[in-house]
């Protein structure tokens, strides 16, 4: 067998192991990359270092490296499958979370068990933007070392639900033009046609090849970003304008009811003004 120069060997090994690692991560999936569990953390490091070792250490055989990586992939894969099937196995191999703060009180025993000092805990809390332990209702240390924090209700960010405000439901926007190319699949998902899209683009006075990105939201409105950053594209304004004209009509009706001398007409106007007022109140969340 001819022995290749060392640098060529390194190139070959690098390419081979790059492919091997690529396949390994494809098999193990996204879960491996997030390194949620102790097991994934270990196998991630080990697979990487085996590959590194074999690529640079020309004495070690490629086959041996492959076997090592293969075993780690296999075991991780099996443990993933077993953890899905069995809760006990999952608890042992993937670890359970440890409660560090409960009912606003520090659990010193658990803290000691995890070998965290109070400084370590406050550092993790600060990481979550919590600077005052008294603000925390519940905190648990996840198997991957992250701290999950539930703040006391009064310290949580305020939501529309807290304020009793009704909000319109929204769905994710669909990207229908990318780099000047129409994405027919997402166009279909959003229930629009090419014809509709062309009309909308014409309304905005832009051409298709000038559009870098276009998205359609759940109200069926088109939002575009164009290549030429100096050009201003008008933002979608139909809904706010609609709300404004509703308000104008409502005011008009109120005015008519004040102006007219006929009692019957007065009644009719104020009844309809009330109807419009109701419509405004109900439509407001949708038209902002």
């Amino acid at each position, binding site marked *: 067998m001819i022995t290749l120069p060392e640098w060529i060997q390194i190139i070959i090994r690098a390419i081979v192991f790059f492919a091997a690692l690529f396949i390994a991560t494809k098999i193990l999936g996204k879960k491996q990359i997030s390194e949620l569990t102790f097991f994934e953390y270990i196998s991630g490091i080990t697979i990487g270092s085996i590959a590194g070792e074999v690529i640079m250490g020309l004495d070690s055989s490629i086959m041996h490296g492959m076997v090592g990586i293969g075993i780690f992939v296999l075991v991780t894969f099996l443990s993933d499958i077993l953890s899905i099937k069995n809760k006990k196995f999952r608890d042992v191999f993937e670890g359970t979370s440890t409660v560090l703060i409960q009912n606003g009180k520090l659990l010193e025993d658990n803290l000691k068990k995890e070998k965290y000092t109070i400084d370590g805990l406050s550092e993790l809390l600060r990481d979550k933007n919590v600077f005052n332990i008294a603000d925390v209702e519940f905190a648990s240390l996840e198997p991957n070392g992250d701290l999950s924090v539930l703040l006391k209700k009064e310290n949580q960010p305020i939501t529309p639900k807290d304020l009793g405000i009704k909000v*319109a*439901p*929204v*769905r994710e926007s669909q990207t229908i033009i990318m780099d000047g190319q129409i994405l027919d699949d997402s166009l279909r998902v*959003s*229930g629009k046609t090419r014809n509709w899209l062309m009309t909308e683009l014409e309304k905005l006075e832009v051409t298709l090849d000038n559009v870098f990105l276009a998205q359609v939201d*759940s*109200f*069926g*409105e088109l939002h575009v970003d164009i290549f030429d950053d100096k050009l201003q594209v008008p933002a979608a304004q*139909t*809904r706010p304008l*609609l709300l404004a*004209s*509703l308000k*104008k*009509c409502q005011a*008009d*009706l109120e005015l*008519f009811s004040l*102006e*007219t001398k006929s009692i019957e*007409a007065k009644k*009719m*106007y104020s*009844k*309809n003004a009330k*109807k*419009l007022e*109701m*419509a405004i109140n*109900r*439509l407001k969340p*949708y038209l902002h």
Partner: protein
Amino acid sequence: MTVASNVKQCIATIKGIEAQLSTLALHSSIQESQAMFHEMMMLIDEVKQDLEQRKNELELEEPQYKGS
């Protein structure tokens, strides 16, 4: 501006609102929003009918403003 023409203007705006609500109802991809827009469209339609009736009355009272 006469009363009749003011009312007519208001009717025109109402019609515009109705049409826009109809468009929104058709283009929304969420059923809840669709239902809301549709319901409001019906309500606006009631208002429109009342106003149109009033417009006819006004035109009877002041025939000189008919069609203006």
